């Protein structure tokens, strides 16, 4: 696969793109792989890429029941930040931010990582105390996060309404400059292209029917819609569908899958410089490079795989956005979608080995898995290759729900869930 460069682009332009090769080949499913990854989202494709690049394991397939990047990777609000409270989370999410910075060059694919800064609004005394605690904890962990007065917040984000008489008065904000957004589709495509270039097979539209185990209990392969595929190592990275896939291996999980909705407005010229989140009013907003306001909502209250969300939830979100940013009330929404997000009891992911030999698990990212994509994929690849967790993901075991060593990040999550 040829590299993208200014020269290759110019050549394409001059020759009318006549000899354009596909970004990645549509691979035939082989009968055996060293590693099969279930789920071709950012996390799964990323793990395949790092397996090939850092561990020399290239006999790898990434299998998805739909199309590549068609799940939560392709339908999220693209926010990236690492201002989580606990040491374990700070290390994991900050590892991701470190890898985001330079990912475009690493993949030779512009993922448009934009460190425009993430602002989390405090609307009441509890928010103020909680965010200040986060800021102190973050800084002890080397994660940048500063406190802004309402005036400083307004200076950074002019559309913000900081009137003390507002329905949700802004009492200040926590601000992480290294946070921002990235182009979600490009992340999936960039990893897919870079992984395929190193020999990884990407198999789309191939539902996995079951994970097969041998008499000793170890995994032997996958039953798929296109037949049985042998593999000694299977890594599940299937987000909302994780419980269903893992159930076939006899592993039951502390997960529940909820609908999560988001919306996008019609595109307008640049007006909104940062990412702004408000836990209290359950809304977050940024403006994409294309000009659309990207708005996220909270989860519906019941478990569901329907990918349909309720009207009251998005009405509530939009009402909150219009209160905090009254200039946006006349802007029309262009589209809305619902994803399926897998939520753990402590709102932290499960990232590591399972009781089944050869079966690895990356799930439970809830409403915020996109931000962790490179970091999570990187340490997941290490775990699969070495059959041992990387020090960064070592605390994020499935066993923690038995030992009680939970990593309770509910307060750092963006929205109620």
């Amino acid at each position: 696969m040829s590299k993208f460069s200014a020269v290759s682009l110019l050549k394409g332009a001059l020759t009318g793109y006549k000899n354009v090769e596909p970004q990645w080949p549509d691979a035939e499913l082989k009968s055996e792989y060293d590693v099969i990854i279930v789920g071709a989202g950012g996390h799964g494709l990323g793990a395949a890429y790092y397996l090939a690049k850092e561990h020399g394991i290239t006999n790898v397939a990434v299998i998805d029941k739909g199309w590549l990047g068609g799940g939560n990777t392709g339908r999220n609000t693209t926010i990236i930040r690492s201002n989580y409270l606990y040491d374990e989370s700070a290390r994991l999410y900050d590892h991701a931010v470190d890898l985001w910075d330079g990912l475009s060059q690493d993949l030779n694919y512009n993922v448009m990582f934009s460190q425009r800064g993430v602002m989390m609004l405090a609307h009441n005394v509890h928010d103020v105390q909680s965010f200040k605690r986060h800021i102190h904890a973050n800084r002890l962990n080397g994660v940048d996060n500063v406190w802004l007065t309402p005036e400083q917040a307004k200076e950074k984000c002019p559309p913000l309404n900081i009137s003390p008489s507002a329905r949700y008065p802004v009492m200040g904000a926590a601000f992480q400059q290294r946070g921002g957004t990235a182009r979600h589709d490009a992340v999936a495509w960039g990893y897919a292209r870079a992984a395929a270039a190193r020999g990884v097979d990407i198999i789309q539209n191939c539902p996995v029917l079951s994970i097969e185990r041998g008499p000793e209990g170890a995994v032997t392969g996958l039953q798929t819609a296109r037949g049985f595929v042998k593999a000694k190592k299977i890594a599940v990275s299937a987000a909302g569908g994780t419980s269903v896939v893992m159930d076939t291996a006899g592993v039951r999980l502390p997960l529940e899958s909820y609908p999560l909705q988001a919306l996008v407005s019609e595109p307008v010229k640049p007006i909104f410089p940062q990412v702004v989140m408000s836990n209290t009013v359950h809304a977050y907003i940024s403006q994409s490079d294309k000009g659309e306001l990207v708005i996220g909502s909270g989860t519906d209250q019941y478990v569901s795989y329907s990918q349909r969300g309720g009207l009251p939830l998005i009405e509530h979100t939009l009402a909150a956005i219009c209160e905090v940013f009254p200039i946006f009330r006349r802007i029309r929404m262009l589209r809305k979608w619902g994803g399926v997000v897998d939520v753990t009891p402590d709102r932290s992911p499960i990232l590591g080995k399972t009781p089944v030999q050869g079966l690895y698990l990356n799930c439970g990212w809830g409403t915020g898995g996109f931000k962790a994509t490179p970091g999570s994929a990187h340490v997941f690849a290490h775990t699969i290759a070495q059959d041992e967790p990387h020090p960064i993901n070592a605390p994020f075991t499935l066993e923690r729900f038995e030992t009680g060593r939970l990593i309770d990040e509910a307060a750092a999550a963006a929205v109620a869930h």
Partner: protein
Amino acid sequence: MSNLRVDGKGRINRDKRIRFTFDGVSYEGFEGDTVASALLANGVHLMGRSFKYHRPRGPVTAGSEEPNALIGTSRGGAGRFEPNTRATVQEIYEGLTTVSQNKWPSLNFDVGAINDKLHKLFAAGFYYKTFMWPKSFWDKVYEPVIRASAGLGVSPSEPDADAYASRYLYAELLIVGAGPAGLAAALTAARNGTDVVLVDENRELGGSLLSEAPASIDGKPTETWLSECIEELSTLPNVRLMTRSVAIGYYHENMVGVAEKLTDHLAYPPAGAPRERMWRIRAKEVILAQGALERPLVFDGNDRPGVMMASAAQTYLNRYGVKVGTAAVVMTSHDSAWYAAFDLVDAGVTIAALVDVRSSVGDHLLSEAQARGITVKTGHTVLSVAGKKRVSGVQVGRVTGDGKVSDITSVSCDTVLMSGGWTPSLHLFSHTKGSLHWDEENEVFLPGEKTERCHIAGGGRGLWSQQAAFDDGVLAAEQALTSLGQTAKTISVDVDGDRAGSGIVMEELPSNDDKLLAGHL
């Protein structure tokens, strides 16, 4: 400034003249006009610039499906500017101020149009492949430039000055769309005493009957039949008619969100009146009678101002009394554009050529065309369009056996009317996760398995004639009433002079160019 109004045509109120501005120039229209119809009546097609290449754009449709003619609107005072509004939907009122978008310094002379010259560099997805070197340039140079050139209209900069309202509503039967199918369903259910809500996005009920009136309905002129129908529905206590009301979403258990526009057509809104009202309508049964959307055809220059859907030209003529041009070339793969051409000729528009990519069409069409003196070119295609900010002509050629084009000639015109057939409008149905199935024969997606208690009627089921739509509306109402446990007394609506038709689907019109490059050479 030309006047392209046609006497005796249209449903505008000619007694009420209205002045509004577009890019600072004052124009006159009539009550009932949209910004697009009023500008077209004044000979203005150029209404915007495209998103990326800043290509000149004019309206291609006459309705809410409009992708091109997007404008900013405002009325007196701060906090009432709105970007990206479809000129084809926004009604004019005294004092309305509108502006074009995505241009600098002006719509006519736009520096950004340089992107069109460089289109080969700025190919689809080019930004993923570049702007990576040197790394530090991304934050400081590339991204700020990309962000500044993206977006279409400008955001409002003042807090919204208006108020909004919301309400719940419950009904036995909700009907979305008040064309032939929706009206027939409403009449059937209403006469039965069923509690009916009928919503339509337009200012008037009638749908396609407003754009293409058949000779008569139930022995009466269409206009008479329609006003009697609306009169009957509006006097029944069990019926609620809602116009200017857009069904925005279809949620669980037959809840449909409807946004009703209340004041955006009024010069002097009542003090304190809400601008819009959000309805959450919960219905036991829903009928989706949203019709179909005309498909564009793919050929070089099909986005030039002056190129539009054949049905849009028909709507501008019959609903607004506006000729979209004086000399038109029709390019079609479907019978329906022939009828549009006939209407236009009858209103005094010259059809410079009627080009149909199909090698043979029905004799009745040919004889009607002949009677009107139209030059017909079957088995031909339009290759390209001349003119920059307005069409000035087309290249027409004969399609040869190997899919290439020969005998190419130039035809002068100021308008190109295209039709690639029709696509059922199933957007709301898809919100329910109802499945679609592909109809091989007619090459359309049709509604499949349903997840909610809903029925699709008319164009949404791939039925292309008004008689079929009326019949299907009655049928859908009967099914809904049966499901409600009511017995429906069936009704019949008889259309005289119905214009049924068929066509073929073309992915891209034949040309002698490399497919990948077609559209750019």
